[in-house]
């Protein structure tokens, strides 16, 4: 399981990078390996509101569909439309394959550090 120390994580397996007022959100390496080969992503539109703890999109593998949750409340300022044509990039480079960028953040859930997330995954595996 690959982790990046500079990122924060959620218990629903999203990573989040904060740069000033902008939060960038994607799926963790652990999530992509559990889901298997991803074949499609459903993304919100620019300008949509996202709410902490609620699904903002989903990813599909051949035999499953899983929601992707937002760790923050705010407005979608950018959407990575390249994922629509190349969902495999989530499998190949999960930390480069961001889903959305969020601004106007009014609420944020308690996030995990790389270490804490690693521990959380190990415990849930047992």
């Amino acid at each position: 399981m690959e982790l990046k120390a500079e990122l924060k994580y959620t218990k629903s397996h999203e990573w989040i990078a904060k740069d000033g007022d902008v939060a960038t959100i994607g799926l963790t390496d652990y999530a992509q390996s559990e889901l298997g080969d991803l074949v499609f992503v459903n993304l919100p539109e620019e300008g949509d509101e996202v709410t902490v703890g609620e699904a903002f999109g989903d990813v599909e593998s051949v035999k499953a569909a899983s929601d992707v949750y937002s760790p923050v409340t705010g407005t979608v300022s950018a959407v990575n439309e390249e994922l629509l044509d190349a969902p495999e990039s989530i499998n190949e480079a999960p930390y480069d394959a961001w889903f959305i960028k969020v601004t106007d953040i009014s609420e944020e859930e308690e996030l995990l550090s790389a270490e804490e997330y690693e521990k959380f995954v190990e415990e849930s595996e047992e």
Partner: protein
Amino acid sequence: MLLFEKSREGRGCAILPECDVPVVLPQEKDARKQPLHMPALSEPELSRHYTELAHKTRGVNDGFYPLGSCTMKYNPRVNEQIAALEGFNQIHPLQPQGTVQGCMEVMALAEKYLCEITGMDHMTLQPAAGAHGELTGLLLMKAYHTSKGNTHKTKILVPDSAHGTNPASAAMAGYTVVSIPSGDDGCVDIEKLKEAAGDDIAGLMLTNPNTVGLFDKNIREITQIVHDCGGLCYYDGANLNAVMGIVRPGDMGFDIVHLNLHKTFSTPHGGGGPGAGPVGCKEELAQFLPSVLVEKDGDDLHFTKPEHSIGEMKSFYGNFLVVVKALTYILTLGREGIPQASSNAVLNANYMMNQLKDLYTMAYDDICMHEFVMSLADLKKDTGISAMDIAKGLLDNNIHPPTMYFPLIVEEALMVEPTETESRETLDEAVAVFRQLHAQAAADPEGLHHAPTKTPVTRLDEVGAARHPHLRYHFED
């Protein structure tokens, strides 16, 4: 090779004569400009093309087909012959009622017999499939609650072992789904059900025997709990083949039932349809039924529209020819044959399970109904061979695999439903194949990972198909 690749300009079949009246064509503004690309092939080529496709298709008559929850029983030939009669086939659905008394008699008899088998009071034959029946049944429920002013009833209880159509249908009817966990015995967890059964519950969807092949012995208590909170009980008829003539959903406490005529009543699956999903209900709900019902008036039959009907679920009266086939089947089996079909379906399933349970782990080691579920989780841990690998191995042995990875509550599930129309020899042979594959899992797992090898194609790239969908042939111009 596709039809379009075989097509050669100038070839064709001479189907229609020349026009015998002056030709009238649409005005320029409405005339088609896009070119048409229907294949140009002579009848011999066409006929051979489809024969070739048939060879690459596996039906019930090609061998054992123990596909759990699908009831792949033999499809009697006489049913097909009857449904092909001009007197059924060539009838326009909007003919005057006096000229379709035979069709109406088919509908009246089918309703009567299917109500008797399910313990219901009325039945609509309009739904075209099981899922269509589910939606119909849930809309009956919604109409009932609406009429009672029960607008606060917005939730439907669905066990976690349910077929995916149940929650999907509930959502289409505008309901929120509340998933009820199964207990360790695979049956509804009564305590959890009690917790969930509140004033906001519109109803419960359940199949019994359930999706793990067990008869839920608490069924009366379950339906009572739902009724006590003002909800209705919906019976998913997917598994009726286990209990016909032995116990009826109506006597278990269910208010609404859908049947799958293409499972239980021997009509062919047609590669995915057409089926038929009649919906039966208790008297109180009959006023909401869609379409029309047939009533007898002296010697004449006529259509009546239920007073507070939910409307239409599709055009006309349903997949009528499928109903003709099912009625033919019911008449053939009759009062003794129907329960015999069920008891032999249960016998065959138990017979197979008993000969496999020393090797394969049964998800629930109890007397099963018409199907049983094995979990290959242990095998996978020991050998790396998954339920999918065993399924693919069966393909090389001329056996259609059981249903895989369902129900979701059983890990690495294979769900086996032999049906009553298989002989003991067929079951014995299948058992031998299952046992041999189990041995191969340990001895030659690599070989199984590559199965099937004897089929027209090997394992297909489903990931590629879904990532870059190629859903039609593209013509050059």
